[in-house]
Every structure is written in C-alpha cells, then in structure tokens.
C-alpha cells in the first residue's frame, strides 16, 4: 500500500545508527580539510557527500531563491564547457552529481567509478569552484524554477505548509520558501548568484563523508584538489527564532475534494537532554507508521485518512513538532478532533510499558538497517558531523534509547505537547471548521 511518506525532512540523527562493523576513519587532508571515511572496496566506486552549513537561510529576504537557483546552476557549465558539454562529460564517465539547497545547508552528492575517479573529480571541481553562471543558463534554469513555483501554487500541501511557516516563523528566513517567489526569483541577477555562492560554499563550514573504493590517503589528496580553492570564510549565520504562532485552525481556501492539514507547535532541540525521551515518545505518538497511535486512531479505526505522520524537527535555528495528513473535506473536522485528543492523552498519561518496550525494540532493532549502500552511509557520516556528534556516538546511541523510561516520557510529553497550542493549517474546503 506504499504507506504515506512525508516530504518534509524528518531525518533525525538519533534514528541513524551505525552497525558496529563499519569502521569510520577520521581523515584530515594535507591542507586541513576534515572528512569521515568508510573504506568499502568490494564494489569499484565511491560515494562522496559534501555539505556546507548555512544554506538558503543565509540569503537576504529580497534575494529569496538565490541559493536554490545558484545550486541548480552549478552543473550548467564551467570553463569552456556549457551545460550540455558538462552533462555529456559526466555521462561519458558514468558519474552522478547532484546539487541541493536546503534551509540549513547546501549539499553535493557524487558517485563515481574507480576507473575514472580523477576525471570525474576534475569535472566536479569545475562545477563547485568555477561555475560559469552563463546568462543563457541562468535564464533557462530560472524559467524551470518559476515553472515549479507555479505548480506549487496549485498544490494544497505546499500551500498549507507555506502558511504554516509564515505564521510560525515571522521575521525569519524560515517564514518563506527557500525556492523564493515569482518576484524575487525574477529579479535575481548573476552577481546575486556569485554572492550567495561565496557566502554558502566556503571551507569554514564544510563537512565531508566518503564511502567506497578509496583509501584515506587518496581521499585527502582528492579533497585538496576538489575543494582547496574555495573561499576560506562564508557568510554569518542567522539568529535563532522561537515558534511564534498561536494554536487554532487556519484555512487556506482551495478547490479540491480532499483537504490537506499540516499541524505543529514548539519543539525540542537536538542537543537537549530530553531529546531521546521526546524521540521515543514521538515514535509512539505519530512517527511509527502502523505502530503509532495516530495511525491507529485516524486511519485504522476510523478510515479518516490514507496516512498521518508526526515528526520532531530540530532545525539549525528553530525547533518544532510537525505533522500532516489528508482527509476528505467532510471528514477533516473529525480527524482534527482525533489528533487533538491523542495529543492530550499523551500529554496527560504518557505511554504504557508495552508501548515503550515495542518502541525501544523497534528503534534499536532498526540499528543496522539504515546502512544499505555507500551513498546512504556517506550521507549519515555528514549528518553526524553536522550535528556535532563524534564517532563514539554510534556505540552509545542504542543505550540512550534503552535508558528512556516511562517517567521520562510522561514528564517530557507533559512539557512538550499542548493540544491548545497546536496550529492546524488546512488547505481545501473543509466542512465544519
């Protein structure tokens, strides 16, 4: 039944364990670039993940969308190669390279064969260090971004999330979409892209994970060649923002048979001592798929939705609890009532011994399952570094889950969850709200 998966980034580091056999090496390149490496020589390729902390939240309000457009343009030509020549060169090497802009980081994911590693890295270096940003490429990619923005304007899920962000994070970059608006994106010029590139892709904020057919020494040399010519220092980070919206229901009118609801309130920091109890609690409340209370109550017992999920979202500059689901217009009000009452039940009574035991068994048992391939592992290595965890975290992570007690969860749930503080934004034509 392809269960409902939210598109929001719900990747929480604590859910990313590492199997004991994976040996992480901490590598420092000759010029001082740090990286984590797992050597895996059984398949002749390497996955390389590079992230730069900061991301689209570094840009000014009137330049919204600049980082997103800039990252999309990195592969559109370098040196004497235009976009097509660059793509053709990449195809000839059978390498893959992707460039993504996030709220809190920009990232580059690459995968390349051992047989042509140097050529692939020379190509990638050109994209990262010396992209052309040709005007024709800017215009063409900008048109693609604008086209996506027009589609988003017709997507009830996107509309609901946009209103939610605007209410929750007023005055902060998180209040608006990192993709920008028709107005801001249309106004961007080449100098804006150069400015956000220099601000966001710099050596003072880089995190590297590599997994595959490469040695520590080879990786060090590779990183110096690939990244050595980047600026040393980038732009300053934005401030923290408190979740600023009041509880209640907001409606975004949209003509559709089924409404989409997003909901949430203030959350908990990733480095809070209570994060693990909150994390286990959320597994039981809403992130456990079929094992969660919300799925049981909203979907399994009442058939009010195809899927519902909740997430702890500890972003770099804000933290909140977030959830979403879709229901027919005539059933949305009932679904919201059920969510509120489950919220209250958890806040008042916490969880049972059995629920805790099941959640802990799941979370610790899922330990080896995240590591299914070089790319996913490289991703995890970068995520761990960005959250300030060290390699020892791997050995202790499951103990932290097992140490969570019912009392911890009851206390944290009572502090964290507040049904009256929940902001629901519903896009559609819900009845009775």
């Amino acid at each position, binding site marked *: *039944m*392809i*269960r409902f998966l939210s598109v929001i980034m719900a990747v929480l580091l604590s859910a990313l364990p590492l*199997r004991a056999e994976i040996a992480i090496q901490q590598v420092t390149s000759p010029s001082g670039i740090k990286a984590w490496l797992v050597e895996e020589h*059984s*398949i*002749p*390729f390497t996955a390389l993940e590079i992230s730069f902390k900061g991301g689209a939240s570094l840009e000014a309000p009137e330049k919204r969308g600049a980082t997103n457009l800039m990252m999309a343009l990195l592969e559109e030509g370098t040196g004497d190669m235009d*976009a*097509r020549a660059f*793509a*053709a060169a990449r*195809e*000839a090497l*059978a390498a893959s390279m992707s460039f993504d802009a996030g709220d809190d980081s920009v990232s580059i994911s690459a*995968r390349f*064969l051992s047989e042509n590693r140097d050529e692939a890295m020379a190509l990638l270096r050109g994209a990262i260090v010396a992209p052309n940003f040709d005007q024709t490429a800017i215009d063409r990619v900008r*048109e*693609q971004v604008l*086209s996506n*923005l*027009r*589609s*988003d304007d*017709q*997507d009830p899920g996107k509309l609901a999330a946009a209103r939610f962000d605007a209410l929750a994070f007023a005055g902060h970059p998180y209040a608006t979409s990192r993709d920008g608006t028709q107005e801001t994106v249309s106004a961007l010029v080449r100098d804006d892209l150069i400015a956000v590139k220099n601000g966001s892709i710099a050596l003072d904020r880089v995190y590297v994970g590599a997994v595959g057919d490469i040695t520590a020494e080879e990786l060090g040399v590779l990183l110096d060649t690939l990244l050595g010519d980047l600026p040393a220092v980038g732009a300053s980070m934005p401030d923290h923002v408190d979740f600023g919206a009041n509880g209640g229901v907001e409606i975004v009118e949209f*003509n*559709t*048979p*089924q409404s989409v609801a997003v909901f949430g309130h203030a959350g908990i920091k990733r480095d809070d001592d209570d994060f693990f109890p909150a994390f286990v609690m959320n597994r039981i409340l809403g992130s*456990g*798929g*079929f*094992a969660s209370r919300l799925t*049981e109550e909203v*979907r*399994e*017992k*009442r*058939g*009010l*939705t*195809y*899927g519902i999920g909740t997430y702890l979202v500890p972003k770099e500059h804000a933290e909140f609890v977030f959830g979403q689901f*879709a*229901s*027919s217009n005539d059933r949305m009000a009932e679904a919201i009532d059920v969510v509120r009452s489950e919220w209250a039940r958890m806040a008042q009574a916490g969880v049972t011994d059995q629920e805790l035991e*099941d959640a802990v*068994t*799941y*979370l*610790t*048992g*899922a330990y*080896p*399952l995240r*590591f*299914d*391939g070089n*790319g996913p592992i490289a991703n995890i290595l970068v995520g761990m570094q960005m959250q300030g965890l060290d390699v020892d975290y791997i050995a202790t992570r499951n103990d932290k889950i097992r140490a969570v007690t019912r009392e911890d969860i009851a206390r944290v749930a009572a502090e964290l969850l507040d049904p009256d503080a929940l902001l629901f934004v519903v896009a559609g034509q819900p009845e009775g709200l």
Partner: protein
Amino acid sequence: MLNRILKALGVAALLPMPAFAETTTSFTLDNGMDVVVIEDHRAPVVVQMVWYKVGAADEPAGKSGIAHFLEHLLFRGTENLAPGEFSETVAANGGSDNAFTSWDYTAYHQRVAADRLGLMMQMEADRMRNLKITEADMLVERDVVLEERNQRTDSDPGSLFSEQRNAAQYLNHPYGVPVIGWRHELEKLNAQDALDFYQEYYAPNNAILIVAGDVNPDEVLAMAQEHYGPLAPTEGLEARVRPQEPPQLSERRLTLEDPRIGQSYLLRSYLAPERDAGDQKTAAALTMLAELLGGSPTTSYMAKRLQFDEQIAVYTSAWYNGMSYDDTTFGMVIVPVPGVSLDEAETAMDRVLAEFIADGIDAEHFERIKMQSRAGQIYADDDVASLARRYGQALTTGLTLADIEAWPELLQSVTAEDVLEAAQTVLDRNRAVTGRLVKPEILQ
C-alpha cells in the same frame, strides 16, 4: 533460471549463477513456489519479498480495485494473527514492511535484521493461505482506500490525466482500468469479492519468493521448505490470458482541463511491444531509443533540439519500460515555454521526431548511454533491495532469470539501425494517444 530449474523433489538443486555481478541462486519448491536468493554480505540485513503473479489486470470485470484492496486487507489479520499484528511484529523486530500492487503483480516485503528471516517467512506464509476478513475491518479499510484514491488520484490532476489516457490507450485490455479502481466500483467492493480473488490467486504455485541480503542459499531453502513448503497450491490455476487490443485504426486524442494545474503540457504514448521471454531485442532497442530521445534533461535529442536549440520547451522527456506482461507503451512529454501554445509544441515535437529518424544517431551520444548502462551494473550491486525489486518485476511479467541475465548484454549489442527501425515501427500516431493537460484560461 526458471526455465531450467530442477524441480525440487525432496532435494532441490541450487544453481549459482556467476554470470551475474551479484550472486544469485534459484530453486523451486514441490508445491510450485519459485525462490530466488540474491546474496549481499556487506551488512547483516535481509529483504524478503513475496510476489504474486496477479494484479489489477487480472480482476473480474466490474470489480476494479479488488487486487489493491485485497493487498490492504492482507494487513488486517489471519486465523493466527490479529489485525495489524503482522506489521507490529515486523516493527517490534526493528524492521519495516509494506506492499504494492500493479497491473501485473502484487508484492509484499519486509526489511529486517538477517537473523529474523525465519519469523518473516512464517508470517508471510501464514497470510498466503489463512486470511480472515471481518465485515467491520473491510468497511474501514475500504474508507482508507477511498482516501488513498482521494489523495493520490482525485487530488492530483496529473494522476487523473494519466487515468484518462490509459483508458483511451487500451480499448479492450484491462490495462485501461486504473489499479486503484474506478470510484463507483471501489465504493461497492465487499469482503467476498476480496476472498474469492484471494483464494484463487494467493497460492505457492502463483508466487515467487525473493530473498536478498546477508543470507546463505542453503539456509534460505531449508527455511522456505519449512514455512512455504506445506502450503497447498491452487489446483487448475489457469494461464494468464487477458483480452487483447484490437488493431488501432485511428489516432486518439484527448484534452483534460483542470484549474489546479500549474503548467499545461502535452503527453503522447504509443502502444509498444514489451520484453518477452527469449525475445527482448525490440524492447532493448526501444529502451535505447527512449534514452537517446529523452533520457536526459540536458543531452538527449529532444532536449537538445526543443529546449536548447529552438527554446520551445522548458522540459521534455521520453521513457519506455519493457517489463509488462502484455503490450506496453512508449511515452514522451513536452512542457512548452510560456508563450508557446500546445499546438506549436506538438508540431515541433513531431518535426524533431522525424528529424531524429532522418539524421541518424550520434555515435558519441550512443556510446555514452552504453557506458552508463555498463556502470549501472556496478552501481546496482550497491542496492540489493532495488535488485530484488527488479527481479520480482521481471519474473511476474513473464520473463525468466535467463532473460534477466541476458538483458545487459542485449542493451550493449543494440545498433543504431536497430534503434531507427524500432523508432519507425513504434512512433506512429495512429497507434498512439496524445493527451493535453490544460489550464482552462489558456483555451479562452
């Protein structure tokens, strides 16, 4: 390979296949259940998939959606498991599970630590034959499926457009009926419909077990014999013969207007041959044709001509998936830049297709695609769950392990002449559906 699998008469013969990059072993149980084992010992994880050779295209007329509805009901309990207990048990063991339904197959899968495989087999074997459906559960699950239809189809103009185009593509073949089901039929499905379908098709002689990960084939065989071996096959299960398409005599065109779309576009799909057992050459040529024409948003022929040279389109693509039991389609799409009408875009697309055939194929471009296909074999070994999925899809759409094994080499051996011949045969508007998804004001 299935066509030379020794029937397991007490002792099954294991056939390792070193020709695969991955280590693959297969055997067949006495009751007719095929088993494929793909080894990957890098992490202590296993994926179990059970694929049934039945899907939406095998549904009785008037019962659309029953295959997918039944898939949902398989999570609602058996004589031995309470509703929801299956997934709860998987989760309590640290694993994840799910299922999916297509026209040609229905598959159930779990991903768990390798030492839990026996338990997964025990539960999956149980629900192959012992499903129990109560009226109350059936009614709630039908609401869930209706919400799924709301969410995935009715709320998505692209999805509705796809449903309409499929219906136009297949006049007689059940591929024209949506997997999720037409709403008016879905609303009336009942427990008996689901049980009838279940009892006929959910049987070891209609199923394929695929186990991928950190396992030993001998141990998988022993476990499979223990858990699946005792299950009774469905006697007299008939060959899969669906109503076939009559010759298409005229072009089919349709326009769907929907105010919810952000961008108008034109999509065309041509009826095309699929990969057949022992006969995959045309499909290999069509696969390469799709890559050459529209496989890359930057370097493919359509992108080069329509996006870069003439700047008529903001996006183009072409695709072909040969894994289908009956005739499949070859598709392409064009999204025009603002100010270019769909008429103009279609005219340009047809002109560019004709020029592709007239110009012949750029040898360097063709070689790049073959290089990527070769590298794909290396990268594929890093993702054993996807490999398992590919095997399952192939084996439930009429292909054999020998066909899967032959495919990479077949792709490498496709010539420019093969591609052009396939293009000339398939790209015929009289065997196609051309659809337009339009924002209403554009027509005004």
